[in-house]
Every structure is written in C-alpha cells, then in structure tokens.
C-alpha cells in the first residue's frame, strides 16, 4: 500500500476512535459545565456500560446495540440517583469535596463490578467484529463505523435537546449563571440531576459501543477512560460541548498517528503530553469561556 493510503487509513481510524472519545468527553464536560464538578467516576460509568452489554448478551443473547434500549435509561436513572443522594449534598461545599465524592463512587463501582464479574477481561463476540467496509481504498472497521454513526446520532440528539427544548434552555441557563437561573424560576437542583443523568447515559452508551472492540476489566479500564475523558475535555476546553467533539477527534488522530509513525509503545502518552501542554499554556483559555457556551 502506498504511503498516502496508509496515512488516510490512519486518519480514518483516528477520527472514528476519536468519535467515541468525544462521546465520553461530552458527558464529562456537560457535567462540569453545569455542576462545576470534575467527575472522577466517569470512566467507571463507561465500564459499567460495557458490563451491561456483557450481561444482556450473556442472559438474553442480545446484540450490544440492542441492549442500548435498556442500558441508556438505566444509566440515566442511576445518574439521577447518584446526584440526588450524594452529589447534591456537596455541591456547595469546597470543590474538592465533590471531587473526592466522585472518586469514592469510582472506587465503589469498579470494585463492585470486580466482586460481581471477577477480574478476568470480558467482551461480547459479535458476528461483524472483524468485517470491514471499504471506501476509496480505505478499510473501515464495521465496529468503529457503527460506533461513529451512533456518536453522530447522539451528538445531534444532544444538540437538539440543548438548543431546541425548554429543558435544554434551562440547562444552558444553569450553566451560565446558577443564581440567575434560580431567579427566573428554574429548579436548578432538578437540572443538576438531569445533567448528571445525561452524563452517565452518554458514558454508558460509549461503553456499549466499545464492547465489541475492547475488553473490559473492572478497575483498570475505568481509570483509563476517565483519563481519556479529561484529556478530551481539556484539549477542547472544560464545559464546552462543541470543543469536546473537536478534542475527542484530535486525541484519536494524535494517538493513531503517534503510534504508527513514532513509538507505538507510547501510544497512551501522546494524549497525556498534549494534555499537559494545554494545561500549561492555555489555562486561562480553559477557564475563560467555560461558562459561556454549553
């Protein structure tokens, strides 16, 4: 294959992988934008999604995408419950309290999965796992393509929710100014619950779309995803949904290109280095516009 073909192939893989990263990152950034809380358990909710697909597959023989029908609403309500009973109590405490609470939730989820499913890696076998779809000489993995399509649909739905509905307006209002939103009659506590539920739902969905591709392990995978979500959101700017999409795709492409042209063993490190550089050189950009756009 010519060099250009390989390059295009890499870009395509990077963009598709980046789409899933974006899906994970959006959940984190939405929660941060509205609640000003860094959710350390976000990656563990992704893993929870992966295990829900494993569970539905084992019990009912469902395809991962079919299990989304149940997994997404369950994820939403799990998020609402976690917010109501834990996070709403610390929302006005010093910021580390919420951070530590989500760290605790992360440990509880990871270890509860470990107790239920055991430590060995789990996955779901699907018939289309290795099939590819060829377009202009570029082979796209069917699994990644489906994940990409699901991401686009979800982002479009989220966009419509935020910009075309009354709840979306309330969410944007709360993100912009919580007190102001209260003054015009928005129940911001309800909005917080909804937003956290949405964040968990997005994480669960990303997990389900990833399960044909990756193995799930109870505790390590969660931390990896949380870190990826941080990288994505900080690359884009915390609290900014549009930027999280760009950040996700950027991370996907940087990882794939870095791994294929430089040292593949440092694949994970490229994103982290980019993350540190952004933190160092554009921290004011990260703080600056976070409230304006959600």
């Amino acid at each position: 294959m010519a060099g250009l073909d390989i390059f295009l192939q890499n870009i395509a893989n990077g963009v598709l992988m980046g789409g899933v990263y974006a899906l994970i990152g959006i959940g984190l950034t939405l929660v941060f934008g509205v609640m000003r809380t860094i959710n350390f358990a976000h990656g563990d909710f992704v893993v929870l999604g992966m295990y829900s697909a494993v569970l539905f597959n084992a019990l009912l023989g469902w395809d991962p995408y079919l299990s989304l029908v149940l997994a997404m609403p369950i994820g939403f309500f799990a998020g609402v419950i976690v917010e109501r009973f834990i996070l709403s109590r610390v929302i006005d405490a010093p910021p580390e309290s919420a951070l530590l609470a989500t760290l605790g939730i992360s440990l509880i989820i990871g270890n509860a999965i470990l107790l239920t499913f055991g430590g060995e890696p789990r996955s779901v076998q699907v018939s289309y796992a290795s099939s590819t779809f060829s377009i202009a000489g570029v082979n796209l993995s069917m699994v990644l393509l489906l994940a990409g399509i699901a991401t686009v649909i979800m982002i479009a739905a989220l966009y419509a929710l935020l910009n075309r509905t009354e709840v979306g307006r309330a969410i944007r209002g709360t993100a912009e100014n919580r007190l102001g939103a209260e003054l015009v009659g928005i129940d911001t506590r309800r909005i917080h619950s909804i937003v956290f539920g949405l964040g968990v739902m997005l994480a669960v969905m990303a997990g389900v779309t990833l399960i044909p591709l990756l193995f799930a392990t109870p505790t390590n995978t969660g931390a990896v995803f949380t870190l990826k979500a941080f990288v994505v959101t900080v690359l884009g700017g915390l609290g900014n949904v549009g930027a999280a999409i760009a950040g996700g795709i950027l991370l996907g492409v940087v990882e794939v290109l870095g791994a294929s042209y430089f040292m593949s063993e440092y694949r994970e490190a490229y994103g982290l280095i980019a993350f540190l550089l952004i933190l160092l050189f554009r921290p004011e950009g990260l703080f600056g516009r976070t409230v304006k756009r959600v």
Partner: protein
Amino acid sequence: MTKHLIGLGVLLAVGVAYPAIFPNNLTIAISVLLFAGWATSWDLLGGWNGQVSLGHASFVGLGAYFVAIGQSQFGLAPWWTMAMAAAVAAVLAYFWGWLTFSLRGPYFSLSTIAVAEILRLVAINEEWLTGGATGVFIATLPEPFGVDLFSRTAQFYMALAFATVVIATVIVISRARFGYQLRAVREDEDSAMAAGIDPTATKLKAFMLSAALTSIGGGIYGIVLAFIEPHVIFALLLSVQIALTAIIGGRGTIWGPAVGALVLIGAGEMFRTTFAEANMLIYGILILVVVLFVPRGIVGELARRHIRRLYAKRAQG
C-alpha cells in the same frame, strides 16, 4: 507540642517492642507504618497546604526503582540510592510544581495524574533501565553491621524509623513559621499574598519536602517487595490510596494520616477474605462517609469535639 512529642515517644516504644510481641504479624505492621509515613508526607502538601495530589505513587516508584536498579545494576547500597532518590524526587517536584502551581483547584490534581501516568509508561517501556513490564529484582543487599536487610524485623525497624521521622518533621513544621505559611496559603492565597507570603514558593517547598520524604519510604518499600513491577508501584490506585488514607484520617492534623493508615490497612486486612482483590471498596465507602458526614476526617472530628467540650466547660465556669 509536648503532647505530640509524648505521642511520638509512645509510637516508638510500642514499635520497638512490637516485633518481640507479634513476630508473625510483621508484614502488616510494615504496611501500616509505610502508609502512615506516605500519607503524612502527602498531608504536608495535601492537608496543610491544600494542594490535593493524585500522583504520589510516582515518588514511591522513584524511590523503589532507585534502590532496586542501584543495587542490581550498579551495586550501590540502599542508603546511598535512597538519598539520591530523595534528591531527584525534590528536583522533580520542583519542576513539576513550577509548571503546575499556576493552576488552581482541580487542574493541579488532574495534572498530577497525567505526570504519574507518563512516568509509569516510561518505566514500562524503557526496558534497558527498568526491566520493562517484568520489573526489577533485588537479589542481594549489603549487610550493615551484620544486619540482614531481607529479614522482616530489620524492614520493620526501617519502616518505623521512616514513619517516626516523617511525623516528627510535621510536628516541628506545625509550630514553625513555615507551617503557618502553609496554612495561610491553604485558606486564602490572595490574603496570604497580602500578608507577604509567596504562595508559589510555599507550595513548591511543601511539594519538594513531601516528594523527598515519600521517595525515602518508596526505597524502603522496594527493599520490602524485593521485586518491583511498574504496574504495582506506579499505579494510580496507589496514589489514590495514599491521598484517601490522609483524608479519611484527617487532613491537616498531625496524627490523622497515621490513624487513617491504621484504620484502612487494618480494615483491608479484616475484609481480605470477604472482598479478596476488591478491598479498595472500603476506601470508596469510607471516603463517601467522610465527605458527606465528617469532612474533617477521623482525627479532625475528634479534635473538634474535644475543643467544643473544653469551651463548654469554660462557659459553665
């Protein structure tokens, strides 16, 4: 101050007698002492200075790798490599802090995770130095004054000395000018600046001291393990464990981190058969309890109640 020094004396007395009384439970006592030392070092930065680090496993790993590589590849005795590790940890903390202390709030915590992860990847991939994912093995150790460093009793005394030195350092600092500067910066950076304190310099000093102390404990841990794998020693979970030990015990208190280590390692041991590898579940549940109901941690809450009782007594007169 006297009270704390008496406490330290009690710790030393109990510690010196411990191996004779419980010769079969040395390994768990070593973990308690090492975690007490690490959590107390973490607390210098995280509790007294308010900068929550989730990357302290880097310094543990640094100490352990220095001891292991120094011994196996260069034949250097552990005390030299521990001193080197402490110096390198302080230098690393200086640059790390210099880069990241301009960030306030959660951004510092996030950057500590990223730096620790990068160090872990380096340890896994640079096989020529670290033995890669398989790790380094310590086959021989020197015998200072005929003491076998592989014996658990000798390792116990090293861990005891480490914990004692760290706690003594914090006792001294808590009453020194530096200790008040740390707390002033934690409470309000702008007011501290107005009072003539340089917040960045204060944070840098705390971070460097915390890093150097942690890496010395890491060196002892390396000797205890005798076999160092990057997945274990640089794990994010170890960083989290160190931070949570201090926070559950009581941030910014002298004995909180040590009490936290005793409670958490003890609980982990008790539930070992029930939860097997899932023993971090206890940390998760306890940190939620602390955040929701006792934000000061165990020792912080006890101290608060004690002070209220004193006031009540005085009011009754």
